[in-house]
């Protein structure tokens, strides 16, 4: 156990569940975003399957698919989908590492949580810019 290396819990713990006053530490932000992005990916799965089907169906449906993803609103949704996938991917790898007790102490866990947020946003920006 790593617990002995971490600072003793002398801070007063919050005695409330007021969502406007709770300040989430970075690993908790990554965790809830993992859940939010996972739910978003599930909800957008029919869109992905529709686009895959249209892209493979025929030359005509391929052209139609290209036209659909050119629409600004769809582009926005797809950028959101891209971020959700990348965040879920990066945070998922972090959770697998934590399962193996890699980077599990307080300071490394905070640093790699920041890294997950930064890398997934940076990759979204890079890939998003390249795709459009």
């Amino acid at each position, binding site marked *: 156990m790593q617990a002995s290396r971490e600072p003793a819990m002398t801070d007063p713990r919050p005695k409330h569940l007021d969502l406007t006053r709770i300040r989430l530490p970075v690993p908790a932000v990554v965790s809830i975003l993992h*859940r939010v992005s*996972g*739910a978003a990916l599930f909800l957008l*799965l029919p869109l992905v399957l529709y686009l895959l089907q249209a*892209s*493979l169906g025929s030359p005509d449906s*391929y052209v139609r698919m290209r036209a659909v993803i050119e629409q600004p609103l769809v582009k926005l949704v797809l950028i959101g989908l891209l971020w959700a996938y990348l965040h879920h991917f990066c945070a998922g790898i972090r959770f697998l590492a934590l399962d193996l007790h890699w980077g599990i102490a307080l300071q490394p866990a905070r640093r790699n949580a920041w890294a997950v947020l930064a890398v997934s946003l940076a990759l979204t920006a890079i890939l998003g810019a390249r795709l459009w």
Partner: protein
Amino acid sequence: MVKRIVVGAHYGLMSFLAQRITAVAMALYTLLIVGVLLVAPPAHYGDWKALFAQQWMRLATFAFLMSLLLHAWVGMRDIFMDYIKPTGWRLAAQAAVILALTAYAGWSIQILLGA
């Protein structure tokens, strides 16, 4: 009556393992597809169609999609168990997800067989 010991019986272990095994499978597929798209980006319909006409690509994509459905089931069930307290509503939501995922499985097969 079957007496079940509720603590330490590993009832969640299969879900836990399935979630992680499918996660690793999907991560590998993601790296594979990114690699393929970087090495030979499909410029038009013909290239894209040819990529998915290959058996290994169809099988890999099918394995990815099935992993995704199983992974989504574990994840959505976790979310429902945390936030939907009334048993009836929770079961209804879980049934809806199971039906949706089953339909997506059929849809995936249809897409890949037609490809």
